[in-house]
């Protein structure tokens, strides 16, 4: 079964006919050619497919594209400004926060969304006082980033990269 949808992806408006079974991830990669969203587990467990969906971080492998008609999507590729990396991406480079790099676009999008959640005052599982202002320390970052796996194990540098931007 086909459906007509539009998506704004990294600033560009796209009109597509998609199979109802197509996930956002597959539409991004296979139909639109935006490959910065990565397919890792394809079951919502690894976070490699994380993008900003209508401004919030979300896995795209468990979202049918048809259900997100008219959505605004920003992938890691779309975070960059004019010839400049996004501060989070730059911090990943500065802190050597990756090895193979496959999980990195998802990590970066997740970190950008996560920092906005902190800015909005959202508590996390490790926040001791649910009503106090958030202090973004390493424990908070590790908990909030637990939906993004890195099989190279670059976690230590990922945490320090995010720490720098979050300061």
């Amino acid at each position, binding site marked *: 079964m086909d459906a007509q949808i539009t998506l704004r992806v990294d600033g560009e408006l796209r009109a597509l006919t998609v199979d109802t079974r197509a*996930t956002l991830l597959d539409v991004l990669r296979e139909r639109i050619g935006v490959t910065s969203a990565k397919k890792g587990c394809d079951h919502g467990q690894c976070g490699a497919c994380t993008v900003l969906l209508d401004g919030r971080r979300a896995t795209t492998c468990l*979202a049918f594209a048809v259900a997100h008609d008219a959505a605004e999507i920003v992938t890691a590729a779309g975070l960059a400004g004019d010839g400049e990396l996004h501060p989070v991406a730059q911090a990943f480079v500065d802190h050597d926060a990756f090895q193979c790099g496959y999980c990195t676009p998802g990590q970066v999008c997740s970190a950008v969304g996560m920092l906005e959640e902190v800015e909005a005052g959202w508590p996390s*599982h490790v926040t001791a006082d*649910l009503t106090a202002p958030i202090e973004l320390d390493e424990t908070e970052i590790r908990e909030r980033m*637990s939906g993004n796996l890195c099989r190279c194990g670059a976690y230590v540098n990922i945490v320090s990269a995010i720490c720098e931007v979050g300061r």
Partner: protein
Amino acid sequence: MRPFEYERAADAADAVASVAGRPGAAFLGGGTNLVDHMKLGVATPDLLVDVSRLPFDTVESLPGGGVRIGGAVRNSDLAAEPVIRERYPVLSQALLAGASGQLRNLATTAGNLLQRTRCVYFQDVTTPCNKREPGSGCSALHGYTRYHAVLGASERCVAVHPSDMAVALTALDALVQVQGPDGGRSIPVAELHRLPGDAPERDTVLEHGELITAVDLPELPMAARSHYRKVRDRASYAFALVSVAAMLDVEDGTVLDARVAFGGLAHKPWRATRAEDVLRGAPATEETFRRAADAELAGARPLRDNAFKVPMARNTLVAVLRELVQRRR
């Protein structure tokens, strides 16, 4: 994946009519469980009725002092909601202990409740499973059972309900508002999910086509000092081995009232009424807490790999109750 049609519901009545009129239809919320199961071949709906954009996406005060949570409110928004953080912290804590940040941004209140009660065998279509295919047998019964039920299971199914949120709602005596083809009804959340018995294919008491539109929290002053603790194999982003949602009303060293629910132990969130009976009127001491836990867990029937859950549940409950008492001082 099997082909399916997709409809975006205009309103609740439209959604209910669409699903109720077609045996193969299913509601779609955030999709984090259903889409996964469709990929695995565990769920094969021929029509998805999308209810995620219906206007049940607010948290509102109820006239009697309680709070109404819309069925389409995202788990992340609910956890961050000021009224929940202040008056029902156990619910915020439970939500934040579940899934990951990017999944909580998608998952809805109603969808979280209606995620399948499940185990690894249920999700593996190459193995027998009475829940997935009634009458085919239970692979877990003589298989790997670290994560399975110790309370209320049957010979047919030993899976557990994985929601953290539902455990907190059970302790809070939440009321589930449902709209169906024959009108609306309210179901206490403790009665929403079923024990497996002879029909493990049915997770809940809902009829096909019934839609959860809201969950109501009662006015419950003691919930302001409530707590959720989850024990799991990793520090984050893992299902519970055991979890406890609890609140205590203590005066002059005596427990006046208590609410306790366990997660990770049964086919449904487990309201610990036996433990509550021991707690009410007893001194708020560790000895009482141990007796309360023992009373509830006396009926536990562990499987090959999960006998550890019984002392783990006991110790977790005692620790949570002790913490609730200490924090009052």
